[in-house]
């Protein structure tokens, strides 16, 4: 069966972002970009399904500017077979991205689509659920284990009190939690091979998708800074401060 993984190009998770002085957004010029960590896990899971003989082909897809080709090449180096770039603005909302992915899903007809549970820039945690709703498929969000059996997929999900297991009919949508797997590193020979793998570019117009959003970002500001605290010298001093100064115990 065919498995699709969706990836997103985001600011590297180690970068401490700075808010622009005019409040228009976060300064992304000359900042290191990378594949969203949850998306790496999605690609890894898809590639493992192929290695287990469950998946016959792994297609990776992204929505973004042409520079997102870098992240598609990374996914190809990790073991995906081919890539699709839906060339659009970098700051589309989750609903627009879900609609574009739905159009790609309609065309490619994968049995399983794996996405990260959230992107570490917008922190929305929406796209997988929206894609599932638009395509009418079942959803296994925040997955820590995925098993395919015949025409269904069993997904163990991270929920607030512990873990929950659900069974979904295929085709289905899965979003990854950090604990699903440990992504591999791309080897140099695989990076070289990835350059020859097919990468197709399509436009939202060709997919017939409208990108209208009902959300508008009015302002982006830095969070209130915490004032620097003090260092205490002993446990006794700490307890004294907590009791008499902060009055929290």
């Amino acid at each position, binding site marked *: 069966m065919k498995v699709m993984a969706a990836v997103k190009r985001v600011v590297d998770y180690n970068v401490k972002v700075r808010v622009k002085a005019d409040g228009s957004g976060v300064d992304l010029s000359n900042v290191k970009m990378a594949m969203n960590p949850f998306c790496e896990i999605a690609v890894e899971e898809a590639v493992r399904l192929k290695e287990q003989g469950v998946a016959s082909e792994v297609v990776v897809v992204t929505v973004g500017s042409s520079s997102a080709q870098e992240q598609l090449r990374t996914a190809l180096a990790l073991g995906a077979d081919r890539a699709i770039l839906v060339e659009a603005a970098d700051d589309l909302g989750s609903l627009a991205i879900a609609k574009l992915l739905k159009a790609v899903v309609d065309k490619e007809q994968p049995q399983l689509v794996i996405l990260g549970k959230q992107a570490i820039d917008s922190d929305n945690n929406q796209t997988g659920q929206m894609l599932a709703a638009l395509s009418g498929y079942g959803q296994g969000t925040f997955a820590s284990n995925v098993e395919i059996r015949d025409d269904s997929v069993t997904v163990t999900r*991270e929920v*607030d009190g512990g873990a*929950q297991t659900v069974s979904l009919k295929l085709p289905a949508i899965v979003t990854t*939690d950090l604990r699903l797997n440990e992504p591999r590193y791309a080897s140099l020979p695989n990076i070289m091979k990835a350059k020859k793998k097919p990468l197709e570019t399509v436009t939202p117009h060709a997919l017939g998708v409208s990108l209208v959003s009902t959300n508008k970002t009015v302002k982006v500001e830095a969070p209130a800074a915490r004032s620097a605290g003090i260092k205490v010298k002993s446990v006794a001093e700490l307890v004294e401060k907590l009791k008499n100064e902060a009055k929290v115990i």
Partner: protein
Amino acid sequence: MAILVIAEHNNAALAAATLNTVTAAQQIGGDIHLLVAGHGAGAVAEAAAQVAGVAKVLLADNAAYAHQLPENVAPLVAELGKGYSHILAAATSNGKNILPRVAAQLDVDQISEIIAVESADTFKRPIYAGNAIATVQSSAAVKVITVRSTGFDAAAAEGGNAAIEALSLVTDSGRSAFVSEALAKSDRPELTAAKIVVSGGRGMQNGDNFKHLYALADKLGAGVGASRAAVDAGFVPNDMQVGQTGKIVAPQLYIAVGISGAIQHLAGMKDSKVIVAINKDEEAPIFQVADYGLVADLFEAVPELERAI
């Protein structure tokens, strides 16, 4: 204008996060209706009717809603929601699972994890792991929103007297089925609601050493959390994780033990009122946000702290 709030519950009790969501709804303004979708959830509806500020409780009680599978609950909420100006749910694993599906069915964008209400259509929410705060305006006919519970006080659980209306509408997609669940058991207060939280990181070295934190927590009546490093190393189960990808807490007192203070961890606890850091590395980033820092070996400091309280 009326607001539909999706109740968070386990078919037996109403979760505390619902009360914070009701407060957010009150700040938006309008009649507040609480939807209880579940199976055998009559007691939850009774409790929901007592919540101060709730005008009406809608009870959808059917086996199809027993485990709140989004494939079944989202169509119900989307259908009901068409008559409301706002649909709100707590940003719990359930709320995050169901609500984007509702938004897509209504063809509107969702606003996730709001921390403040500016007006009926404008909200604040953290982005980039809490390193920036975005003000977002929605032009949607039905505004679909999840609420970060630490951003709002809890509404009073008593004092209300809402009518309970049973719904007959059943939506069962047949695309998903509940198999099993494994819930972690704990006598300590729930992490997101605890007044005091004691958290351990990689510095704890192993799961057994968490007993020092449990002893301290029991003395303080505190919840026990962990950093992602401690969870990934297998010291403790992952529902204890505090951070961008785990739980968001904002207790009165947060004690971080053997935690370096990575961005991803700070995103989950930096709104705590008082932060205490105990770490032997005086360069650890956690000291930059800690109100009180103690540079010491945690294996000496934590038992001493427990005895001193």
